[in-house]
């Protein structure tokens, strides 16, 4: 079963019950390189394995880039 989340501004289906950590691993993203926000709350890295997406969650996954 899948649920729908809004990920970085785009609606997307993910497996129900998937954790932040599982999602990052599925996309080959190093968890230590990103910060994750779910419904405007920051998810600490030590909670990536425990935090599971729910239907209609708004998720932001951000990383540092070059900037002035």
């Amino acid at each position, binding site marked *: 079963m899948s649920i729908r989340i809004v990920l*970085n501004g785009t609606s997307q289906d993910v497996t129900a019950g998937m954790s932040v950590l599982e999602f990052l691993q599925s996309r080959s*993203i190093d968890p230590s390189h990103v*910060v994750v926000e779910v419904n405007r709350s920051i998810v600490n890295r030590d909670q990536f394995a425990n935090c599971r997406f729910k239907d209609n969650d708004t998720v*932001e996954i951000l990383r*540092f880039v070059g*900037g*002035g």
Partner: protein
Amino acid sequence: MRMKDELVIAGIPVRSRLITGSGKYRDESIIKDVLEAAQCDIITIALRRIDFDNPSENILKNVPSGKHLLPNTSGARTAEEAVRIARLARAMKCGNWIKIEVINDQKYLLPDNHETILATETLSKEGFVVFPYMTPDLSAARRMVDAGAAAVMPLGAPIGSNRGLQTRELLEIMISEIDIPVIVDAGIGKPSHATEAMEMGADAVLLNTAIASSDDPVSMARAFRLAVEAGRTAYLAGMPGESRTARASSPLTGFLDS
């Protein structure tokens, strides 16, 4: 004997008075060499959504350890958005320094001093070391100091414009009146602009475009290091005043007129 000339920001000694940005590089792998050539200790970065097509992209792999990372809040249009970005940046576990950048105006990218003051107050209370990017204005700068800013960063000219110190008079007033470090940020397009800022007594300069968009960023980084050192050294040496008329450098008493 003169004390060691050291820039101290929020109690932390910083060796270099040249701060560089990490944006606009055609090839980010040269940033390491740029930082080495600039002998730069502080580098700015930005926070953006991850590129799922390029998930291993990571600016930090190009930044040697031991540098102070200064994330900015670029993209923020209000104090609230700047605070949100700052908190996210801190969650990256790369320190608690933050450059506040609150911009509503897309043509000139001029910062909103009012919102910047509000963000400075909130973030200082939360323990951030706050560097507000600002339009040079003494009253606003004083409010930022009162709000807990670690330094203030007035612009010389619009971001990326390379037009130098168009705000010179206002910068001079701020340098004269503000007791925390004044870092001239934005508009510095060539080494002579950096020298001019340092000769005026600025504590440091921050630039990005002038190095990153040059044909040879590593050489340009070295040029800026020398320019900043030259300007600072001249400032400390105490420059003589100007005169509308000539003042002879050779003795006027000689032998032909005697």
